[in-house]
């Protein structure tokens, strides 16, 4: 009996380790298949005509599955510590839900026909719905998961309608009959409209993002790491499938529209991120910003594809694929570090945090690495993908016509503005949570345990390595795009027409060299330096709350942009809330009219239907 108790108590640990090994196996399998490089397709058709499970594997899906598997493995290592720190009850249920969620994501990437896609897409959404609803006691969780599942459902309905567009033209449900179609304008616009709406709702573009900032703060941290690191990439994967594999020819204005949507999402996201007062709400909005950046890359690639300028379309698509990889790395790192911080401080409000780096230096450095790559500063991976994006924006001016010469410089400067504001929000969140003195006394102050250190360490290290040696990643991306981005040796990346070239390896080496000097000099300087109270204009014992507060930090931005929005920045909540309330109110009054409860009215309705049907039967003749 004792053994059973012991086993059942940490059965979830064995499960977790087993699953992480599974993911590592999948990751290695992906690499092997990628090198082999040919596509496989498997059809298992069941008894009924349209219900067939079919999967296919090609390089694009392998790239995405590699990302999901890598992050999944690290996530499960991280949860070994995190679930204990947070001591959730029903641990086995949590691990099972989480791992089936990851597997369903991998299977979504493998699907090859409409039925299997819908099956795993819905399974993925429902599992993430239950994960968001984990500690269901709080009203906030219920509201957030309600909005999340309803918006996903509407998104799936739109995706369904876009499938209809394909089905009507090709009269088949499996994706490999849809390869490079050319359709008439009505159906292309139909598919475009519904694919943008459907996948946009799941990815969180400008108008359809309401669930993102609501679902992530309430979900357990490693779940929101999975959701914003990986789940948001699924619709982007399908979007790329649609517009770069399925449909051959489409007007360039589609790409322009996606470019503008991406720019607005990026700007709107980061502006909202900078004014949030909760850690994970900021990270959620910054995922929205990064989705905006990815959509800018895709929009640009679509414009070049429709003008069939091969090398520029390859550069832009390569930039967005690279950014998808980077974002999944540093975003899950940041969510995990936010999770460990919350496990210690038991609160998400930044006004109650502060000074975490004193009692958790390792956590502090890892979050610093995450923040640096979020803001895309040189030695880290964010910089490379943004550099590629800048280059493709710059080069887009070589293309005459299609108002590109107005749109791309504007979006380039908006990209720079977003980078600036991202730096502001990164300083705000890292500074106010980790530096300075704790604003509220933190109960248990100890650094992160080994397991979470390993998992977050690997992620931080991979951010640095991808940043310093992007060449290996580019080798992978190069065979996803028609014209490979020119890479000579292991140091330098050159953009076409050798417009710009960058050797991140050398910048990285100099940065590391810089770090070593600073540590050495520190030893020398701090040997004989005096330690004294912080200078506060001579005031004695300044209260801890006198430190700068998060609202104060973001007050300038809020004041400057207040001209753009009313009070709160996220105006879409107001609009959708108003529409929903008035719709439901109308429904209520309509309900009463139809069913007043008196039997005579019902009999009247019945008599009327009888007469109408008789009349209709006469007309039908």
């Amino acid at each position: 009996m004792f053994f059973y108790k012991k086993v059942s108590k940490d059965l979830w640990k064995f499960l977790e380790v087993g699953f992480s090994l599974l993911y590592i196996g999948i990751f290695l399998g992906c690499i092997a298949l990628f090198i082999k490089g040919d596509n496989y397709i498997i059809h298992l058709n069941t008894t009924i005509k349209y219900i067939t499970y079919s999967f296919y594997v090609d390089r694009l899906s392998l790239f995405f599955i590699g990302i999901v598997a890598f992050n999944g493995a690290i996530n499960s290592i991280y949860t070994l510590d995190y679930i204990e720190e947070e001591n959730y009850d029903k641990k086995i249920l949590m691990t099972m839900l989480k791992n089936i969620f990851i597997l369903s994501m991998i299977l979504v990437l493998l699907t090859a026909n409409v039925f299997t896609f819908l099956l795993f897409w819905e399974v993925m959404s429902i599992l993430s719905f239950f994960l968001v609803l984990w500690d269901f006691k709080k009203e906030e969780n219920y509201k957030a998961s309600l909005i999340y599942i309803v918006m996903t459902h509407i998104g799936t309905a739109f995706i369904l309608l876009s499938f209809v567009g394909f089905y009507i033209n090709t009269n088949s449900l499996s994706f490999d009959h849809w390869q490079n179609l050319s359709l008439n304008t009505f159906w292309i616009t139909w598919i475009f409209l519904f694919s943008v709406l459907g996948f946009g709702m799941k990815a969180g573009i400008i108008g359809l993002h309401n669930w993102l900032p609501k679902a992530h703060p309430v979900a357990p941290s490693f779940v929101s790491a999975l959701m914003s690191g990986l789940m948001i990439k699924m619709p982007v994967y399908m979007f790329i499938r649609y517009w770069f594999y399925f449909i051959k020819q489409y007007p360039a204005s589609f790409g322009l529209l996606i470019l503008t949507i991406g720019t607005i999402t990026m700007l709107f996201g980061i502006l909202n991120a900078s004014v949030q007062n909760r850690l994970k709400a900021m990270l959620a909005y910054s995922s929205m910003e990064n989705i905006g950046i990815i959509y800018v890359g895709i929009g640009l690639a679509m414009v070049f594809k429709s003008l069939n300028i091969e090398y520029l379309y390859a550069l832009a698509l390569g930039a967005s694929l690279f950014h998808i990889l980077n974002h999944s790395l540093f975003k899950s790192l940041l969510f995990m570090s936010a999770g460990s911080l919350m496990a210690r401080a038991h609160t998400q409000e930044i006004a109650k945090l502060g000074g975490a780096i004193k009692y958790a230096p390792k956590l502090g450095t890892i979050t610093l690495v995450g923040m640096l790559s979020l803001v895309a500063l040189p030695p880290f991976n964010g910089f490379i993908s943004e550099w590629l994006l800048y280059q493709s924006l710059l080069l887009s001016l070589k293309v005459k016509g299609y108002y590109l010469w107005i749109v791309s410089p504007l979006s380039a400067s908006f990209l720079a503005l977003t980078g600036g504001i991202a730096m502001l929000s990164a300083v705000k969140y890292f500074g106010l949570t980790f530096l300075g003195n704790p604003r509220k006394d933190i109960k248990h102050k100890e650094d992160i345990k080994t397991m979470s250190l390993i998992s977050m360490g690997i992620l931080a290290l991979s951010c640095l390595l991808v940043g310093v040696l992007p060449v290996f990643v580019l080798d992978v991306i190069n065979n996803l795009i028609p014209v490979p981005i020119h890479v000579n040796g292991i140091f330098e990346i050159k953009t076409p027409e050798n417009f710009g070239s960058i050797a991140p390896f050398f910048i990285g080496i100099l940065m590391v060299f810089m770090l070593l000097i600073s540590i050495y000099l520190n030893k020398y300087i701090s040997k004989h330096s005096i330690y004294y109270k912080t200078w506060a204009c001579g005031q004695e014992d300044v209260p801890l709350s006198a430190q700068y507060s998060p609202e104060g930090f973001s007050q300038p931005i809020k004041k400057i942009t207040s001209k753009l929005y009313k009070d709160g920045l996220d105006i879409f909540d107001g609009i959708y809330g108003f529409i929903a309330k008035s719709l439901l109110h109308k429904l209520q009054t309509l309900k009463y009219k139809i069913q007043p409860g008196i039997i005579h009215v019902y009999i009247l309705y019945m008599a009327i239907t009888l007469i109408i049907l008789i009349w209709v039967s006469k007309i039908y003749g």
Partner: protein
Amino acid sequence: MITLLLLTELIGIVVIPFLDFNKNKYIQAFLQFINVVVFLYLFKILKTNGPYYGTYFTLDSLNIVLIGIVSVVGFLTYLYSIGYLEKEKSLKESKIKEFYLWINTFMFSMLLLVSTSNLGIMWVSIEATTLSTTFLISFYKNKTAVEASWKYIMLCSLGIALALFGIILIYFGVINIIGGGLYSLDWQNIMPIADKIDKNLLKIAFVFVLVGFGTKMGLAPLHFWLPDAHSEAPTPISALMSSVLLSCSFYTIIRIFSIESKAGIGAFTYDTMLYIGLFSIVLASIFIPRSRDYKRLLAYSTMEHMGILAFSLGLGSFEGIFASLLGLIAHALTKALMFMSSGSILVNLHTKSIKDIKGLFKILPITATFLAVGVFAITGAPPFLLFVSEFLTLISAFKEGFIWQRIVVLLALSLIFFGFIESFFGMLTREPTFEQKKEHMFMLIPMGILIILIVGLGLFIPNDIKYLLENAVYTIGVRR
């Protein structure tokens, strides 16, 4: 063989008065179990030597599906009602006897309806079902229950009387060709000569039949008794009624529908069926969001699913009718699950309003998980059977070119999805408003079996069910 089926019911009725409560419930459940065994045996017979059309009873691939639903769901409801009646401490001995008397007559009339193909006998048994359920609805004798049963008996018997007139018109058409007598009302005799009957007569007859059995099936403008009856009746009865009784009335409509489509006036019948289905889905989507009482909500969702079945039947194509039959089975199982879980909530917490209940995961953990699974099953989420049938309806609707109608259905479905998630997960989550309650074992077993059935069939539909449904569709006949 079928007579054995009906016999078990009669024994059930006869045996009630002699046994007291705790012996009574097990024997009744055991009798129903015999029914299930008989159903399986009949299924084997049908597979071996094809359909059997006797004078009174028939057995073809269409009504075996219905017999299956009636017996399986009936058996599970009996199991469930053991736990339900035990939990209802306020009931006297005589009340429970009365309960079993009426529920057995209800089962008897349904099995009679389903095992005959004679339109006249069908009508009589449907009328018998109405009569046997009136006193079940007014079981609790409070004001709303009496009101619900009064509306139920008035509206349904009025509707069914109209249906009788429709059947008389068909009989009138048939008499000129093959002469009077019971055999001329048999479905299998009418089918071969269907195209010789006068077209206008058939159209008027179809109108009366549609209005008549439509009230019983809960289609849109005739559905008014449905929410009241289901919210007031004891839960096993409302489970039985919504999943089985409505499917049987759908069965009668299919029988007459196939005569009409064979007679060549398909344009009128298919389109009316389709648009009435569409109308009831839209109407249900108006009622479901923000409704006050969860049993009424489930009643409206039954109405919506009947609308979907009518919609897919109205499509007329092979996949359409196949999807509607599959949807019939899927809906019966899922709706029974939903009603059972809401019943165990009602029995433990004694309140029907959605707003008072919160934090159900803490109060009744197992029922809450079943309810959560049920909510996703009923709204057509993937691993469950309803997803398959709704996916087929979707594809066949687009194949047949009803794109805009199908978009309206999609909108209505997402509105319904919002209504379901908001009200049920509003009850499941947040701070519990009641303390932890003990759940009765007998209530949980049927729910578990139902979930296993739904998920099992959802993932893999065995071959012989597929062939069964396919030749059921052939018997009904495809449009034009």
